[in-house]
């Protein structure tokens, strides 16, 4: 008997096989999301997934929920509109580092600043994989990329630090092989209000690993996992990533702050009194 994939009820099985390479970390990350969703008490009809463009951007296309595959870098502002227009929805952004942090970087910091109530899962594979391995704002110093053929000399962003300083209420980082912990982190964000950010360090077996001679995807996935150091509550200033060095993982930030809609609601109730018409979406 053919065994069904455990995530099948939440996967668009009519779209499988997916496009991801064997041993790529995006698939395991999507599995973690699906496990967390399956285990959650959320009404899954009210969960939307939004992706931008890139390898990870294909995530929305495989998950069997209301799902939106939009433009490059703009998953967050799309999600912002969706969430604000219907606050009853749980909105998850699933996309890559180039998409969210480079072309979408401005939207990222502003959504965090406003504390828009969305979950952002950012799969960081240190390069632009879909277009063939160009340098990105996450590429570690000295790593090789097609547009940094002699090694990268641009200092990358430290994503947890960027997220925290922009205003995120929940910031965590795991590798794609921390299956249980990553699933647990996603579960926490599903019950968290506010801008939650999850960075997932993921091997790009086909492009980044090969170009940098880091072995096959599986060994790189293991390398990231085995070279990670769990430091919950670490100062996000100190968690920047260097080429093939230790990766600090853990939950760095978990605080409470009024979301955009809560702050708006509270403010208008106070200043407009009875004239204020609270908004809860339609339908």
């Amino acid at each position, binding site marked *: 008997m053919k065994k069904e994939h455990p995530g099948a009820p939440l996967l*668009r099985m*009519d*779209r499988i096989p997916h496009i991801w390479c064997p041993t790529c970390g995006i698939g395991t990350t999507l599995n973690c999301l699906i496990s967390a969703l399956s285990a959650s008490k959320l009404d899954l*009809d*009210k969960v*939307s997934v*939004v992706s931008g463009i890139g390898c990870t951007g294909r995530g*929305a*296309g495989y998950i*069997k*929920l*209301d*799902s*939106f*595959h*939009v*433009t490059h*870098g*703009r998953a*967050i*502002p*799309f*999600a*912002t*509109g*969706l*969430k*604000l*227009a*219907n606050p*009853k*929805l749980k909105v998850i952004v699933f996309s890559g580092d180039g998409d969210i942090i480079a072309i979408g970087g*401005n*939207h990222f910091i*502003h959504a965090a600043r406003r504390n828009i109530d969305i979950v952002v899962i950012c799969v960081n594979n240190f390069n632009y994989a879909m277009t063939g391995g160009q340098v990105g704002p996450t590429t570690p110093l000295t790593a090789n990329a097609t547009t940094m053929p002699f090694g990268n000399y641009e200092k990358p962003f430290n994503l947890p630090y960027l997220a925290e300083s922009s205003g995120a209420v929940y910031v965590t980082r795991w590798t794609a092989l921390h299956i249980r912990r990553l699933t647990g982190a996603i579960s926490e964000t599903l019950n968290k209000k506010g801008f939650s950010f999850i960075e997932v360090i993921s091997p790009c077996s086909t492009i980044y690993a090969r170009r940098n001679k880091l072995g096959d995807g599986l060994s790189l996935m293991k390398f990231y996992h085995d070279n990670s150091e769990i430091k919950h509550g670490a100062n996000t200033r100190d968690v920047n990533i260097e080429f093939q060095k230790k990766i600090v993982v853990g939950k760095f930030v978990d605080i409470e702050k009024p979301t*955009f809609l809560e702050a708006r609601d509270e403010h*208008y109730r106070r200043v*407009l009194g009875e*004239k*204020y*018409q*609270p*908004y809860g*979406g*339609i*339908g």
Partner: protein
Amino acid sequence: MKADPKGVLTGSHYLDGDHACCEGALAAGCRFVAGYPITPSTEVVERFSARIPRVGGIFIQMEDELSSSIAILGASWAGVKSMTVTSGPGFSLMMEHIGLAVMLETPCVYVDVQRGGPSTGLPTLPSQADMMQARWGSHGDYEVIAISPSSPQECFDMTIDAFNLSEQYRTPVFLMMDECVGHMTEKVVIPPADKIEVTPRRYTKLPPGKYLPYKPDRDLVPPIVKAGDGYRFHVTGLTHNEKGYPVMSADCQETLVHRLVDKIRVNAKKIIRYEEEKINGADVIVVSYGITARVAQQAIELARKDGVKVGSLRLVVVWPFPEKRIRELAGKTKAFVVPEMNYGQIVFEVERCAAGRAATFLVPHGGGTTHNPEDIYKKIMEAAG
């Protein structure tokens, strides 16, 4: 369906075009606006931000026009009528999501209060130089609907029309204002809510499992759903089949893009709107739109005093273009005179449709102010021969 009275400010007002546009949006049922400040359009969002907490809905000032132009798509997929407002430089940034709105077939309204360009140009002064950008600005093949109001009253009325058309055809609709119309103040009459017709969203009647997001109805428009209703649907900016799934093939491209284009072309007769005056037997027909149509009126009257038979055709809906009508008229009139606040945009459409059967004269104007009616008058006289 009648308008929701909550958003309708019934009465006689003294409003500028920007404010009237905002009231039109509220009357049409728009409950989500995302915007970024830009002269001369900012008054629309300023008014909306003050009105919406007392009507019930959301305004958010985004970090740029890239994000405003897609936040409204997210809101629309949550089932809420949505709009963004901008001017030339912002309109340029929005092109990305105009393409996405077309591709996802998302009802929404983009307002462009045109100012002089290129680039930063003339922030506080008018032009009509974004007309072709509205038609062709985003990459790929598509058709759009664009409306051109020429007074604050029309800014109110036609914003409602824009929303209704966007719901009817599941497509972004442009309201192509200009600085002059946006900032001129005139009487605006807002009727009672039960006198305002609004087009409801065309939701599917099919249950989840049976519904296909891109299976068109007879008019080529597919019924829609919204997030949260259990359909677990997928939409993508990639070329997609009726299920909404990406398919990278020439066949799928042909089926999808051909329908997207035909959706407007086939229904063009129902969408196109123009106003004609003294067309029968006219030797010269002035084709104009927006504020320029009002300026041209004076020139037309001057020429008539000189005994020239001048007709007027004002484009209310500019896109889709009334090709058939211009073709008909080309066989009957000597010449078309097209004044517009640019160096030639809509005139090319007129010329194309006239196909040499009537002469076509442009009255160009770089913007910054409206035409001097004298210039239009001179061109009419020249065209009359």
